[in-house]
């Protein structure tokens, strides 16, 4: 019963949200309370302002387009009281665009309401903005088309010879314009008259986008150097590193504070449960076995199964040796590869190897270690007596 009520409640909540969103954008905000915090998010505010600003622009633009369409319709009727399919198609397109306008704005709001400014809402808002931009471009294109048709009509009426406007592929037209291509038939006019082994050269203009792109990259270069080396508002390598390290340290601390992982050489104790031992064994096999052999008998590194230790054989000693390493003796530090808990696990596993019989044991190294107190606390202070290395 309870769960049923819960379902109904959440369903209702969703319904309210969706309805509110469908009624009006403003309404959506009013119904927004479930999660208010995201509205105070400056990014969300800015994006919403952009959404509404663009919406306004679209409304204005749509008005102009409709006006132009009406004008065009009038003129067309005057000039040619015949087929109206073209006008119809224009109007259909316009209606479609308006329908799109009507739909796009609300689409964003439920997302904002449900998810807050998570990635989902951010990208949704972004999508809405992009959609609005596309609609604007569409409208502008329509407007241009209408104006061009009007011009063509005027010309046609003037010569009183109504000809169908050659419907050129709009993509090709756009492409030609973009590169400011000259029509192929004008090629002879721009032939420079050069002839190198039959190769001629034309005097075409530089593609405008290319030229302006070039200028943009030059401006970019100026700003880049200015920011990095004059105003110092962008971090150089060293500064960037310091920032990254600070951030990482803060994150790590925050995490360790609330996790059970916060073990160090002062607090570590011998673990005995099977899962810890299994984990320790695994860590040993992948990281330690190369030098100490899989059975701990030692090769490059010392034998870990005997009672002789170079840097102390207590839990805390071993933990410390693994964590910081003993670089001058060839033992590397593992603190950046293994987590504190992993080091504790492998330490405990190593302790468990004591007295096992490895296949090919390395001779003892270091001093005899005696477990004087549980956890080897006493050993930490014990000065290692340098045993003769044979």
């Amino acid at each position, binding site marked *: 019963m309870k769960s049923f009520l819960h379902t109904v409640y959440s369903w209702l909540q969703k319904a309210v949200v969706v309805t509110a969103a469908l009624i009006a954008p403003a309404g959506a905000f009013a119904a927004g309370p479930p999660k208010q915090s995201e509205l105070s998010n400056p990014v969300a505010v800015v994006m919403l302002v952009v959404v509404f600003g663009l919406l306004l622009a679209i409304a204005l633009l749509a008005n102009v387009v409709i006006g132009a369409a009406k004008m065009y319709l009038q003129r067309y009727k005057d000039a040619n009281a015949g087929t109206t399919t073209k006008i119809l198609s224009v109007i259909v397109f316009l209606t479609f665009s308006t329908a799109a306008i009507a739909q796009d704005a609300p689409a964003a709001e439920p997302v904002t309401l449900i998810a807050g400014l998570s990635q989902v809402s951010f990208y949704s808002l972004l999508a809405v903005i992009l959609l609005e931009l596309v609609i604007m471009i569409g409208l502008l294109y329509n407007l241009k088309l209408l104006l061009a048709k009007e011009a063509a009509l005027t010309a046609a009426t003037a010569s009183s010879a109504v000809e169908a406007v050659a419907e050129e592929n709009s993509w090709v037209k756009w492409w030609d314009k973009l*590169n400011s*291509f000259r029509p*192929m038939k004008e*090629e002879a006019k721009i*032939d*420079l008259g*050069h002839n*190198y*082994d*039959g*190769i*001629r*050269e*034309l*005097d*075409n*203009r*530089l*593609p405008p986008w*290319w*030229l302006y*792109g*070039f200028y943009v*990259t030059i401006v*970019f*270069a100026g700003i*880049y*150097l200015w920011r*990095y*080396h004059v105003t110092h508002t962008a971090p150089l*390598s*060293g500064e*960037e*590193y310091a920032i*990254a*390290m600070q951030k*990482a340290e803060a*994150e*790590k601390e925050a*995490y360790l504070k609330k*996790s059970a*992982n916060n073990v160090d050489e002062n607090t570590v104790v011998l673990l005995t449960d099977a899962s810890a031992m299994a984990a320790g064994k695994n860590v040993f096999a992948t990281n330690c076995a*190369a*030098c100490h052999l899989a059975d701990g008998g030692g*090769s*490059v*590194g010392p034998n870990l199964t005997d009672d002789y230790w170079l840097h102390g054989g207590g839990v805390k000693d071993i933990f410390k040796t693994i964590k910081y390493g003993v670089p*001058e*003796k*060839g033992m*590397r530090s593992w*603190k*950046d*590869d*293994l*987590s*504190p*808990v*992993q080091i504790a696990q492998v330490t405990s596993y190593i302790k468990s190897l004591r007295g096992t019989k490895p296949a090919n044991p390395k001779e003892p190294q270091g001093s005899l270690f005696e477990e004087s107190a549980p956890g080897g606390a006493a050993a930490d202070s014990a000065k290692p007596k340098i045993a003769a*290395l044979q």
Partner: protein
Amino acid sequence: MQVEQFYYDNRTVKNFAYATVLWGIVGMLAGLLVAIQFYLPAASFNFAPTTFGRLRPVHTNAVIFAFVGNCIFAGIYYSLQRLCKARMFSDLLSKIHFWGWQLIIVAAALTLFMGYTTGKEYAELEWPIDIAITLVWVVFGINMFGTILTRRESHLYVAIWFYIATWVTVAMLHIVNSFEIPFSPLKSYSWYAGVQDALVQWWYGHNAVAFFLTTPVLGLMYYFMPKAANRPVYSYRLSIIHFWALIFIYIWAGPHHLLYTALPDWAQSLGTVFSIMLIAPSWGGMLNGLFTLRGAWDKVREDPVLKFMVVAVTCYGMSTFEGPLLSLKNVNAISHFTDWTIAHVHIGAMGWNGFIAFGMLYWMIPRIFGTQLYSKKLATTHFWVGTMGIVLYALPLYWAGFTQAMMWKQFTEEGQLKFQFLETVTHIIPMYITRSVGGLLYVSGVFIMVYNLVKTVKSGSLVADEAAEAAPLPKVIETHGKEYWHRWIERKPVQMLVYSFILVAIGGLLELIPTFLVKSNIPTIASVKPYTPLELQGRDIYIKEGCYTCHSQMVRPFRDEVARYGEYSKAGEFVYDHPFQWGSKRTGPDLARIGGKYPDSWHYNHMFDPSTMSPGSIMPRYPWLMDAKIDTALTPAKIRAMQTLGVPYPVGYDQQANAELMAQANKIKDNLKKDKIETAADAEIVALIAYLQRVGVDIKGEQKAQVASLK
């Protein structure tokens, strides 16, 4: 006006064309083998000459200087004569140029296999070969300028501008970068050290791409593309602007290979911004090529030559857009040291250089043999196989590079690195396998071409001397009406040469001189000391085996790199590194802080068989290091060479160097003995261990000193 009769020399063109095909196959097969070694380390055959470290320079040098080099020469010798309406200046020089270049290639391959290398990427060849290259390049220059100066055509076509800029810039780059001090008949040390060496090297390396793989090939495109399409060049204006902008800006962009390294920040920033500004000038060439096909796209559908050229130019556009993107620091932080870069350069090498070469050969060979291409169909098959090869090569590597970089940078919540280096390597092995399949397809395509060209050649006969006629060059070149200002310069090849040289010299000088002269660029670190004689010998083995082809020695200031390798690298650490060994790719981990990380015996076992110390490693075995002996007779000469370069060994140290060398070697020998390893004190492995244990440790002394002074 009276018309003169003369003959074009096609024999040299044919020779260079054949050499292109031959060395292309050699270079590509070498590439295929190294690609296979990524997932099959046994493919190095436990044989020194065929290990990755030696074979990779063979591959890069063969493809760049042998395959593309011969292709450029073939194209230039063909087009220059026709664009100048003159036979090549001297048949003898043509012959010397051709045979000299082939001899250099053979010598290069042999010395690289034997391990004689300078250790500087794309400039690995040792000093005698460097001198030979300079001489042959001068011969080529005289031959080219002689032809241009005795031309019958009043103006120089854009292709020739590119040839001239290529010649003068490559000469400058090669000479400056090859400054080295020989200490034996086949070995030398780089004149520059550390940061400065790195800057000079990548100023050279980047512009080897620019002026050996790009400008001359653009020249070829400007000749062969309009010829094959029978269309006028789209825009003369665009040619002018993109040519001058390209050569001026390109030269500055070298430091983008050294982003986040110990190179001074100002130089890094120059590298970035000039790379960005390079987009438009590079694309000018692509646009002029593609727009030239306006009105001829129907031909592209039928003509394999144009197909190759269209894809080539498109690949050129892709590479030259991607390059600047990779020069942005935030992208470079991900892409650098990974396979992303390898994918990027292969779009350029296979797509742009390879396809221009194939298109040119298919067009040119039938013409100089007075016949038709044997089979258009086979050429089209080659085109599709090659294209598929490129796609299959590049895509997996883009994926691999990105994935690996992401894995390197990943931390657990506890703040530990999530992946061991080796895990990130084994993870991308499937991509390495796919890549080699792509390479196999590509080289199979070349074999199809060989068959096709052999059949073509057999169906015709070489027109060794092709008759032509043209009016001689008038004493005074008349101008008709309004002329482009640039026409003036095109009439005067020597001016063209001088202006090109001034333009390319500016960027280089403004970057190199401050790095050499301003002290604050490389802050001194007092604890950094010269290498001991044994370490120096070990370092030479490190260079000889090409360790730098897989291992960097440059910890960048990133959290993950500092966690993985240790303190990030400082400029002052490398002041005695002749040459620098920063590397450009991490197939294995960085070694800048390897010193003291593992015991001597670890290194011994690892070099003998890497998989014992790091299971799953793809590093080849180096068993010969255990038996080979270092040449102690060379030690004094090495020390003296270093002294000449300013390394502060005491006066007369060369004479006591070997005694110190043996003392250090015996220590390592004893150390190994403790771990049950028997070795001779003068074995190469001992020297190598000495060097590896030294790398990156000097700065640790500095840190301790600082702590002490604080107390």
